[in-house]
């Protein structure tokens, strides 16, 4: 507007043409600069003061922005949000859907938070991101709202992953842990029960494959995700912890890939699983591809998270409905087994201007009724302890009874603000170890150890 009125002034005074052009050029430049400046500064300015605990005024309406991944059960989510806005007429919820993959969602969300984007209120945090989000100052501490009495209602492991230092940053939405799905019908046919060790699993699979070769030539022993991505770290951790090893030392300061148990576990997967028990194609599988092999009836054993139960027994998706059972993943000695801990927490952005409304949404979504509904209809394992003894729910989802012990004792991945970088190095090491046949494992492990140690040292050099 300012630019336009300036031109009019010039038009009325032809004599001043020559002088007028120069100011006009600079006015244009100033206008452009102003536009740019407001553009740049408005974003960080607005949320500079984390407006703490304004009383929620129901007088004017508030729009909450919920950045979420693309959900597996969109209808359920739509209905949940609708129910929430019905109960809170002054709040409307806009969902922004990011890609399904956890890494892609992380990259998009952190990009927004890095830029102090005030249009993010509520988001999901993968359990491995809490230290990073807390240290970077992106997630609000929720201690005041997420009270100790409320915390007691959730499984302790899920509350623990939301904690960093002194504060709690996330409310558990769901819990995940690696489980062994197996073809109950085939194991029974050959007189086996769920294997307790990997050796036993290999033996059972070999027997079954030998017997079924004529009838079912495409049957393979095992289907699991081994692609170069975050899921590879989860599954390899299960092998390593099942062998008595770990990814880091107990104090979390050193990487332990060169430890004999860790090397032996990786060696086992490379020599006995890839291209033998599991098809070599497993190196290209994430969860959906490896699940699809199992759903088509082409695998005896399958590793996945709790959500797969619903799909395995879904008449329209699966050819093995009613033929599958779930057990804890095996270990390398009876009783020494491990499941990787996964799951999602709700967090509130530091730059959100509506923390009270955001909290109301989180309370609603993580509440008893909602979690029950998601468990019943989508097979998602709830984070609320009471639901595991809810008669209604157990009748609809009996598998939860078996999951409970596994979920309780699941093994967490390293907790560090530099975890994304550590994981990247682990993914690289594991994928190279499994895909390159003649790789010198010990040497590669030593190189990766040194690299990870340097990263971990950074977290201790804070001034």
């Amino acid at each position: 507007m300012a630019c336009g009125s300036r031109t009019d002034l010039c038009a009325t005074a032809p004599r001043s043409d020559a002088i007028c052009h120069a100011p006009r050029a600079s006015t244009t430049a100033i206008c452009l600069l102003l536009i740019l400046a407001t553009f740049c500064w408005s974003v960080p300015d607005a949320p500079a003061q984390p407006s703490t605990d304004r009383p929620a005024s129901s007088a004017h309406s508030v729009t909450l922005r919920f950045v979420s991944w693309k959900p597996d059960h969109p209808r359920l989510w739509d209905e949940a949000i609708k129910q929430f806005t019905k109960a809170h007429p002054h709040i409307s919820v806009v969902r922004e859907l990011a890609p399904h993959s956890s890494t892609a969602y992380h990259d998009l969300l952190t990009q927004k938070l890095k830029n102090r984007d005030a249009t993010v209120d509520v988001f999901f945090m993968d359990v491995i991101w809490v230290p990073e989000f807390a240290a970077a100052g992106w997630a609000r501490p929720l201690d005041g709202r997420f009270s100790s009495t409320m915390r007691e209602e959730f499984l302790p492991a899920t509350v623990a992953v939301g904690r960093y230092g002194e504060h709690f940053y996330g409310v558990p939405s769901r819990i995940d842990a690696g489980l062994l799905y197996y073809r109950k019908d085939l194991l029974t046919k050959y007189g086996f029960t769920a294997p307790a060790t990997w050796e036993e699993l290999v033996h059972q699979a070999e027997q079954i494959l030998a017997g079924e070769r004529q009838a079912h030539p495409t049957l393979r022993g095992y289907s699991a995700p081994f692609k170069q991505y975050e899921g590879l770290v989860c599954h390899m951790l299960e092998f390593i912890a099942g062998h008595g090893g770990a990814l880091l030392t107990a104090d979390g300061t050193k990487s332990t890939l060169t430890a004999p148990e860790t090397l032996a576990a990786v060696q086992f997967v490379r020599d006995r699983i890839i291209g033998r028990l599991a098809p070599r194609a497993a190196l290209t599988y994430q969860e959906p591809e490896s699940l699809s092999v199992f759903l088509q009836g082409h695998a005896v054993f399958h590793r996945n998270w709790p959500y797969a139960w619903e799909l395995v027994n879904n008449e329209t998706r699966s050819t093995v409905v009613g033929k599958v059972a779930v057990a804890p993943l095996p270990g390398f000695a009876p009783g020494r087994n491990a499941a990787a801990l996964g799951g999602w927490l709700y967090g509130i952005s530091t730059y959100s201007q509506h923390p009270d409304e955001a909290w109301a949404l989180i309370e609603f979504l993580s509440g008893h009724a909602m979690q029950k509904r998601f468990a019943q209809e989508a097979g998602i394992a709830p984070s609320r302890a009471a639901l595991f003894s809810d008669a209604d729910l157990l009748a609809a989802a009996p598998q939860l009874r078996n999951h409970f012990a596994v979920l309780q004792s699941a093994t967490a991945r390293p907790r560090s603000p530099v975890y994304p970088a550590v994981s990247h190095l682990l993914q690289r090491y594991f994928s190279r170890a499994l895909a390159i046949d003649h790789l010198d494992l010990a040497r590669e492990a030593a190189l990766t150890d040194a690299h990870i140690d340097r990263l971990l040292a950074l977290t201790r050099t804070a001034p």
Partner: protein
Amino acid sequence: MTDSPRLTRHRDGPAAWMMVAPALFITLVFALYPVLDSLWVSLHHIFIGLPMLGRSFIGLDNYLALLRDPAAHQALFVTLAFVVLSTLLELACGLVIALVIHEHFRGRGLVRAAILIPWAIPTVVASQLWRYIFNDQYGFANLLLFGDRITEYVPWLAYPTVTFGIIVLADVWKTSSFAALLILAGLQVIPDDLYDAAKVDGANLWQRFRHITLPLLKPAMLLALLFRTMDAFRVFDLVFVMTQGGPGDATQVLQFYGYQTLFTEGRLGYGSAVSVAVFLMILSLSLVYLRAIGSSLLERGRT
């Protein structure tokens, strides 16, 4: 208007500046500033997840670390192999395609249009298609080779070398037509009387191609080479969609490595150093090419 010449000259200055201003402004804000800023950031140690480390100036340490980083070496090796293989193949295929669609035959317009189709498809879509084609379970490649003998299906994308080859193949399929387009333009400016004269002198088809077509095509070929090398150096979407760098880092290219360090790991300083390194490599390569193109044009001017 009855302005004096002096005044007119005086008026031209600001007016010209005003017309150039938007372009200049856009170049400064969206091209020069980001480049300089990346350069500046790459001299710092910035870790998004560790704000307490602050933003410390560390000079060239990120670049020294880059020289010692085995993952970066692997990415550089993969990128160079990709650039050399894909550009050479694209140039060869492009030359063949250009020679074909330069000839007069019925339906030439249709063929010309058809050849441009791969180039017109967005890379992300094409990459997704190639991923399906080489899928072990329901991929077209396996169906074509083995029919319904699914016990023999090959997991193409699970072998490091094969996967790398497939990435090159996908790139050649997609961009050969672009090289063909540039080479075709070069073919069309070669005067027909040169060929006629050569025919009169008794030169056969191969001799005409070897002594007329190839030398005169050199500038167009160099231009195609320049564009393709620069593009190949920046390869990202193919890898992002098809393999995420795997298996075992076999398709980890520099641009994807830079993306991962910047966006997944939050190592702003180091990631910027990777980007600047790629920028410098492309810049120096294009300078070499531009000199070559310039001198070849000069040679042509002298003859």
